[in-house]
């Protein structure tokens, strides 16, 4: 993201192709002023991305749980928003985006994790700048990404995790899993995955594969919901889910088109391909479901749309409109099978399909980003070798899958041994709303 939107990423890719160390061209083309148009768009995009978590994701997930757990899901999204905001101020931004000790083409500790020179947002003033926008706006924009990523994971263990465990998990996971991956991909010259040439425009790897894999590990560690799969657990209000998915679609324009960090052609193209891939994936899931199950479902079309949004995220800065169409269709169909077949076949209880939709669509998107960036396939990336970039993307996916899986497992086991991850049977039966928060979502009498 960020750098490839302008000059650095093409330079990096080109350098990778000719076998030299990456020549980040950012310095040469460094802007010297704050642009009010860019700033206005980035303020808007930032608000859009926050809208994705609260209320977008909260409603999307909230509608899919049983009525007795609706508030718990809304609460978790809201609390994560507050918690990550504070952690981002304390050390999150620094560990993700500090460039202390980084050198292009050189792998050292700071290729994996940022320094502490920006702790408490040290050095941030109204005049400090990131490219053509105030640095405060960039800090805030990136914060909204850090908020939604742990929030995505809650869908995997919905309806059964302790609230205290959730807070510890979110904070530790952000620190140990998210911040290093964000740093490795986005922090510029000298970053581990960035120097490899991995293209991740808006976070397919950093956000979705990372969260989706953590979700799979989490639902395996915490175990199935009581009664799963024999007790019916249908969504209690698909209307909320449709509203949430619609807000996600809207907010994703901030996510993807905002990742250009400018109001320019790259942002415009990112918005266009986001719309196309999302629509294609919605139709892809719809068609697959209609053929396989004999009827088109509302949950299906909105799930397909989310799969498309996820899949196009890494590719939004480099894929062309035709590539986005293909990407969306493929992601929609594959995610239909992963969420409806794979899960039941393997028997894990990923309550709201965090792995089936986010990890799978993220992996499909990250891999296809390689070929689709090629001008030969209508893309706009400085990628000459379709297969070469596919291999780079594969390495990025593989690294992130292992990183997220291993460290998420360690964090979850640690919390399980100390605090306990799961509510007791009675609390689960009563529902987390009453059991943990002593409140109900619905008082209908």
């Amino acid at each position, binding site marked *: 993201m960020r750098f490839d939107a302008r000059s650095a990423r093409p330079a990096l890719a080109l350098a990778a192709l000719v076998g030299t160390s990456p020549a980040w061209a950012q310095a040469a083309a460094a802007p010297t002023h704050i642009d009010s148009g860019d700033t206005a768009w980035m303020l808007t995009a930032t608000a859009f991305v926050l809208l994705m978590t609260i209320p977008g994701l909260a409603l999307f997930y909230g509608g899919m749980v049983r009525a007795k757990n609706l508030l718990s899901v809304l609460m978790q999204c809201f609390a994560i928003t507050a918690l990550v905001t504070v952690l981002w101020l304390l050390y999150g931004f620094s560990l993700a985006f500090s460039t202390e000790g980084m050198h292009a083409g050189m792998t050292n500790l700071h290729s994996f994790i940022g320094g502490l020179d920006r702790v408490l947002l040290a050095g941030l003033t109204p005049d400090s700048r990131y490219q053509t926008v105030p640095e405060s706006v960039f800090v805030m924009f990136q914060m909204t990404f850090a908020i939604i990523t742990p929030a995505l994971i809650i869908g995997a263990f919905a309806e059964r995790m302790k609230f205290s465990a959730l807070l510890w998990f979110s904070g530790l996971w952000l620190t140990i899993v998210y911040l290093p991956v964000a740093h490795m991909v986005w922090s510029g010259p000298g970053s581990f995955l960035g120097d490899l040439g991995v293209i991740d425009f808006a976070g397919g790897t950093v956000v979705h594969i990372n969260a989706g894999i953590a979700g799979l590990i989490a639902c395996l560690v915490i175990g199935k919901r009581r009664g799963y799969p024999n007790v019916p657990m249908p969504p209690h209000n698909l209307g909320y889910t449709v509203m949430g998915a619609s807000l996600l679609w809207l907010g994703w324009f901030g996510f993807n088109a905002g990742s250009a960090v400018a109001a320019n052609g790259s942002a415009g193209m990112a918005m266009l391909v986001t719309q196309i891939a999302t629509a294609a994936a919605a139709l892809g899931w719809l068609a697959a479901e209609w053929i396989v199950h004999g009827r088109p479902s509302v949950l299906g079309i909105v799930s397909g749309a989310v799969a498309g949004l996820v899949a196009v995220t890494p590719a939004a800065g480099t894929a062309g409109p035709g590539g986005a169409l293909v990407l969306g269709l493929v992601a929609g169909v594959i995610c239909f099978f992963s*969420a409806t077949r794979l899960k039941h076949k393997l028997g894990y209880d990923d309550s709201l399909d965090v792995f089936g939709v986010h990890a799978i669509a993220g992996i499909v998107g990250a891999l296809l980003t390689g070929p689709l960036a090629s001008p030969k396939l209508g893309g706009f990336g400085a990628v000459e070798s379709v297969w070469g970039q596919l291999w780079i993307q594969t390495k990025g996916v593989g690294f992130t899958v292992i990183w997220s899986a291993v460290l998420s497992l360690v964090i979850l086991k640690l919390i399980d041994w100390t605090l306990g991850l799961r509510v007791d049977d009675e609390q689960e039966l009563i529902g987390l709303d009453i059991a943990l928060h002593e409140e109900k979502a619905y008082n209908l009498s």
Partner: protein
Amino acid sequence: MKWITAIIKPFTLDDVRQALTEVGVTGMTVTEVKGFGRQHGHTELYRGAEYVVDFLPKLKLEVAIADEQLDQAVEAIMGAARTGKIGDGKIFVSELEQAIRIRTQEVDVDAL
């Protein structure tokens, strides 16, 4: 006196109420209930997970009437509640031994 208990589809209630009023029935009690007969519920499918819903939402209508109103009342309910599709419901008729209006202490047909 007779006691009619009718299980009907919820959306037919207004028509049934109107039809019963037209044949002189002055009061009725309605309860939201769930159940199944030959229809045996239905299935719902969410992301590949199939849920069998055994108990379908119905309304239970209870009416107390004079013996001579029975045929008219049953026909009124049948006419208004019948869609011809499975799940239209059932009508049960039983003897009613006594009726008392609490306010006036009138009994039997006068109390209906």
